């Protein structure tokens, strides 16, 4: 079983549209993971049938018992997350800022602080309209542990994929922080989607550095490539200097938005559109790369 992640550094580059098209092409050979637990959108294109749902309580938060609290404020001085502050002489917990480390509970000499569990998010397994299993989750509002949640999703999906499938396809989240790292580590191929804008170029450099840091083979895809030819040329130059293969250049394609509005992947909406052709070429190259990797 081979694992492929689609990442972008920046949001809005067409990551989810591409992953949905790849999931459509892979069909029942793939298990799909939506690792953007913060803003999971893949399900909106997949018309999912829910099979399983589970609430996850991983986080915890400090709760103060004011019957016991003597207002010494020792807890406030020890909290490194500024999650405890003083209001009218009393220590108050900001449950959103609290990371659940338990330092305040430990330093309290009056046993006035208790750690209580809080909802991290919900975990789902669904079947998509393309016959693949979709492992996805939704982080509780203002939730944390997003990296851990991604790791959990991946582990569950890997069990399923290892037993009976060829591919594990992961739709990553934007950025380079903890959920991205969790979705990148240990995969066989990372497809990095970018746009020919100055800001995307900057983010591409950071995500390439990250992929390299974790030793993950990576290719680049330029979406909306004709938006600026000058910037597109710069990406070409960057890739060739860095020795990164440019998998595809897809022109600005109105069909991507039109397909999104009706809630299906572009490849189903218009199989001949530029984006769909790009997706097919990308999937072919990814498969070839993974096969070659297996042989070597």
């Amino acid at each position, binding site marked *: 079983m081979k694992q492929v992640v689609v990442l972008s*550094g*920046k*949001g*809005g*580059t067409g990551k*989810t549209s591409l992953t949905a098209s790849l999931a459509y092409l892979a069909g029942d050979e793939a298990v799909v993971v939506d690792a953007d637990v*913060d*803003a999971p*959108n893949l399900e*909106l294109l997949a018309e999912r049938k829910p099979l399983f749902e589970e609430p996850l309580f991983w986080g*915890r938060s400090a709760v103060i018992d004011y019957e016991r609290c003597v207002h010494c404020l020792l807890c406030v001085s*020890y909290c*490194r*997350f*500024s999650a405890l502050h003083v209001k009218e002489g009393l220590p108050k917990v900001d449950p*959103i*800022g609290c*990371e*659940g*480390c*338990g*330092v305040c509970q*430990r*330093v309290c000499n009056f046993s006035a602080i208790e750690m209580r569990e809080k909802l991290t998010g919900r975990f789902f397994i669904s079947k998509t309209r393309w016959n693949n299993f979709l492992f996805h989750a*939704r*982080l509780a*509002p*203002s*939730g*944390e542990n*997003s*990296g851990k949640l991604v790791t959990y999703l991946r582990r569950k999906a890997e069990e399923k994929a290892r037993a009976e499938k060829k591919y594990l396809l992961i739709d990553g*989240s*934007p*950025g*380079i*922080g*903890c959920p991205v*790292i969790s979705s990148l580590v240990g995969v066989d191929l990372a497809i990095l989607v970018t*746009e*020919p*804008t*100055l*800001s995307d170029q*900057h*983010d591409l450099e*950071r995500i390439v*550095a*990250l992929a390299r*840091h*974790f030793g993950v083979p990576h290719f680049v895809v330029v979406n909306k490539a004709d*938006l*600026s030819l*000058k*910037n597109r040329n710069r990406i070409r130059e960057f890739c060739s200097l860095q020795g990164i293969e440019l998998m595809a250049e897809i022109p*600005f394609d109105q069909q991507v*938005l039109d397909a*999104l*509005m009706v*809630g299906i992947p572009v490849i189903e909406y218009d199989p001949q559109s530029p984006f769909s052709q790009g997706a097919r070429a990308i999937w072919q190259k990814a498969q070839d790369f993974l096969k070659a990797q297996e042989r070597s």
Partner: protein
Amino acid sequence: MVIACASGKGGTGKTLLAVSLALACSASEQIVFVDADVEAPNAHIFLKPDIEEERVVEAFSPQIDEGKCDGCGECADFCYFSALTLVKGKVLFFPELCHSCGGCELVCPRGAIKEGAVEKGRTRKGVAREGIVFWEGRLKVGEPRAPAVITELKKAVKKEFPDTLTIVDCPPGASCALVEAVRDADFCILVTEPTPFGLSDLKAAFQAIQELGIPCGVVINKAGIGGGGILGFCEEKGIPILGEIPYRRSIAEKYARGLTLVDGEDNLKREVLAIYQALRRVTLKGAGS
């Protein structure tokens, strides 16, 4: 006044609106701009600051004195994040799991753990176009914990510019990094696009902002591509719509070249100022959060 610019989803035009707003307002007011999207800081591309100062953001990292450690395992028992583990009487440290709470140092009965520091990222300060005071944070590549950098960034800004009109460009999403960026803001602009993705992410971001009790309003970017149910959602929740930015390929091309809404042909400065005026009206009335 601190105005946060958030979006739920990436790529909705949050940075574009934030920098345009800063530029449009800079004619009449001193502006501080804070790029808190430390995982993908991009505002510098549009505001072109001259960076004058850079500070390293460090966080607690335990240093274990093996001479003193007797392998009692108290630190590993305490560590809620499993960053410390006892293996064959020896303590192993996994830095990527550490939240820098300092608990291990506190509980070690032998005093074998000392405060060390690890670089999480950097904050940078400078002067940008139109005299805008510019701050940004950059997460170190390979470091997972963005909020640590955001916290330091905000602390530095608040100390130096407590009363200046401040615009904060937030990270996408609705989780801990966003929360850290918008916390203490006086108002939050939620930038969205009229697509099913936009609506889904707007709902999550709104819920997070509401939990924090921060008043907010919506700006619809790429207006005209469809309905997406944004208007219905805003009406149902009583969220004011501050304005919209039309969907045009020319805007995307401008953005690609590092230009803002107030630059070049297709100048939308009036629309941007109208958004700011709508925001002022809403905050004066005391918008519901």
